[in-house]
């Protein structure tokens, strides 16, 4: 910086010549200072993130060593040992830095899982091959590559050729796979593993599985008033209103018979619509390998993350620590009669409609890995759920 300081300013802007007007000189100088400040601010931000991460890494490493050295298994106790590394000293349960962590510490450990962070993306811009011998923290740098998303996933291009034929569906499309967690883990057989495909979801009213792209249309006709049902209802309203008012209407059907048309039946009575909406279901039922899979709600196993307890501000999300508690969700089943095909209703409607129901979400404390299970039938289902969506489980509780 100092070598060029005569001809350029701090940020490298050329200093105005000596014979320039004072305003020129001032302008050059101000511009140089402002650019310098921008660089300074950026640098301070990056410096803070990097140095703090390295300092914390040094602390995590030495705490781990101290815990191993003292051989006490109780967590959070501060072992009474003295350990010294190149980067830090552990003494009286305190971590003291030695030297500048930017020089002494080269890698960065995740403050949460204590695994090394991957520092370059695995694909796209700035990509580097990760060391296959190292287990990295699951938080990876985001990928910047045209046609791929930040996780390196790609998607089915819109356009012709996307439509699926019924005979293809039987062997190809398994909607449960599509909604399963990681598309990268060997789901569909004839599709590249990282292609995002459209999953299915359960309509909360009729409990049918609908391909997500048709969900809005389906709900329009199932719940809302935009389907053909609606026009019938409207016609009925008009005709009822008309007859109440005593005016003549030229509809020959008596109001009673119009009213008698059951609402759900009218939906099934639309063959074309049904074909479209229930495509997946048909395909699935003809699939002998997994008759049940389809009926499960895509995200059956929900995990609760709670930053803090109720009522406290949660703006210190860095403090989130402790054991991961899984919430096993159980559903009240209101159509137990159809036991061959287990229909899992969306939890809200089922539990709220069905009177006293078993607790929907049970929190498993760290010390209680199992919980009392209300009915044997539900045990089975929960096991199913667990085994099938085991991919959604994150790293095991530490």
């Amino acid at each position, binding site marked *: 910086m100092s070598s060029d300081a005569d001809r350029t300013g*701090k940020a490298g802007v050329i200093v105005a010549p000596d014979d320039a007007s004072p305003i020129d000189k001032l302008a050059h100088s101000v511009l140089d*200072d402002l650019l310098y*400040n921008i660089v300074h601010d950026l640098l301070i*931000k990056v410096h*803070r993130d990097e*140095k703090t991460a390295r*300092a914390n890494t040094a*602390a*995590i490493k030495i*705490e781990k060593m101290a815990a191993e050295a003292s051989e006490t298994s109780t967590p959070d106790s501060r072992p009474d040992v003295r350990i010294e590394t190149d980067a830090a000293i552990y003494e009286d349960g305190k*971590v*003291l*830095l030695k030297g500048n962590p*930017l020089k002494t510490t080269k890698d960065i450990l995740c403050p*949460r*899982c204590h695994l090394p962070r991957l520092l370059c993306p695995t694909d796209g811009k700035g990509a580097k091959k990760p060391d296959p011998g190292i287990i990295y923290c699951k*938080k990876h740098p*985001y*990928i*910047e590559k045209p046609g791929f*998303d930040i996780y390196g*996933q790609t*998607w089915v291009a819109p356009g012709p050729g996307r439509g699926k034929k019924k005979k293809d569906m039987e062997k190809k499309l398994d909607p449960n796979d599509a*909604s399963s*967690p*990681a598309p990268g883990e060997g789901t569909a057989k004839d599709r590249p593993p990282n292609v*995002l495909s459209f999953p299915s*979801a*359960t309509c*909360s009213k009729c409990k049918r599985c609908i391909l*997500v792209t048709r*969900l*809005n*249309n389906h709900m*329009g006709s199932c*719940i809302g008033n*935009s389907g053909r049902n609606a026009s019938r209802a409207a016609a009925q309203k008009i005709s009822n209103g008309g007859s109440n008012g005593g005016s003549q209407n030229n509809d020959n059907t008596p109001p009673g018979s119009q009213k008698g048309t059951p609402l759900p039946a009218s939906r099934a009575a639309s063959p074309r619509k049904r074909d479209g909406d229930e495509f997946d279901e048909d395909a699935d039922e003809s699939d002998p390998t997994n008759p049940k899979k389809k009926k499960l709600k895509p*995200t059956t196993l*929900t*995990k*609760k*993350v709670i930053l803090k*307890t*109720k*009522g*406290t*501000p949660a703006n210190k*999300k860095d403090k989130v*620590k*402790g054991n*991961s*508690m899984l919430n096993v969700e159980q559903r009240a089943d209101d159509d137990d009669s159809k036991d061959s095909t287990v229909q899992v209703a969306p939890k*809200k*409607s089922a539990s*709220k409609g069905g009177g006293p129901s078993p*607790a*929907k*979400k049970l929190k498993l404390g760290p010390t209680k890995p199992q919980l009392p299970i209300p009915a044997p039938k539900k045990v089975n289902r929960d096991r199913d759920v667990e085994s099938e969506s085991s991919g*959604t489980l994150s*790293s095991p509780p530490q």
Partner: protein
Amino acid sequence: MAARPGTPASPKNFKIQPPQPGQPLYGCEHVQRLFNQDQATTNTSIQHYKAILRNILDYSPINAQTAKAAEGPTITTSLTSTYLCLQCPSTLTEDDCVKHGNKKSHRFYVDSRSGALYCQMCDDIVWDPTFEDLRLTKIGTGSFTASRKRKQDDLLAVDPVKDNPQYISTNTTVASCKASGLRGIYNAGATCYQNVVLQSFLHNPVLRNFYLSDGHQSSNCEVPYCLSCAMDDMFQDFYAVENTNGYTAANILSGFWISEKKAFENLVTTKEQDAHEFFQFLAEELHERNGDGKKPETGSEHSCNCIIHQTFYGKLQSTTTCQHCAGVTNQVQSFLDLSLPLENLTQKKGKKSGNAKAPAMTLQECLDEEYIKSDKCEYRCHSCNSMQQARRQTAIKCLPNVLSIQLKRFEFKQGRNERAAKIETPVHFPLQLNMLPYTERARTGDTKENFELARSCTYDLLSVVVHVGEIDTGHYVSYCRVGDQWFAFNDHKVELASKSDVLGAKAYLLFYIVRSLA
């Protein structure tokens, strides 16, 4: 230097931050030595640091940017950083630091533009947990004790028991490091107008903290098809599971279809809809599920403690001054968002430049038009007891934590075929927005020297909703910021975005978040 107390008169003993696992106790060996001398040194160091931060943040930057040379009467005011000595009241230029350090053995200096601590022995900036906590609290809340006052009491209130790290760790579940909250949302058939609004809610830190701290537990809620429960589930699925594929917002969609809001009846169709209307719908619905249950009446001064009101609602005050008797009438009403018309300004600018194509304008120009300039109107004056000419001006009385701005790009043109048209004029919007000029306080009082107030009116861009295409058909995409990184959301596709992508977008909705809760 008036703000710096000469002697540490306070008998209060300052403590350094207690040791935290996974974090060193001090920023460097030299800070460690400073804090381990004796209590008096610790007290003066912390007191001085606080005084310096006040000096930097609460007073004119000229104070901190002006350095006095080590020898002689030379006084330099510079645009770049100066260094404030932690151990004595000197302010020094970068070059004089070394001289001062050698002469007085003062080794710690505070950067005048950021408040960061520079250690001369390390020859580096050090991030000491004790000092850094003071700096962040001061910048974040305007004072050193986090819960002193303020409208955000509920957001900031700290329960000493519940703030204990031990308590937190035993009562929380840790999400996987992979769960980042970044997922797309599948388009369920012309629902991109919902997806963009949902994404902006998902990446709104205030709402995120509310839902992730069990603000509305879907397991305890008895309301059938509750949209707030659906939001709770969605936050869990974004921030707690490792899935990186798109999210199917089935519960939101069914809650939306089932909801019986008369005002939004025509929104509930399978056709393409307006994202702004959906935003209003979702805000009102969530307010009713979490708040006092009262309908938020437009035009009234409705206030409520629900999360939606704490996040989005501010207050506008319109002042009408009678031109005849100079009588003043004030009317206060709460607002969910600021709607800025573009049409008038576009025409005005178009005429000026004589160009057929309307030139670009800035967000600040639009805000000036609405909240600084006054307009003429007719009104019934009470004191004159007759219809009079009056001047009306609207200003913001109370700013929200998250400011949502709608740029009215869809304007209904009367006369010409009675058809709505889309205004494509680019509107430049900043990453950082100063709302102080549009507040009622700026109009009535002198706010030039109140830097804390200015900071509390500074907003950072949080998300941008963009409409691509024609008035009656098109597509919505959005940009959201997570930390310093921007992401582009296009239904289930999530990509990295650069700041220039974001700032170059033809925004329809803008969400700004307040920088400091002061």
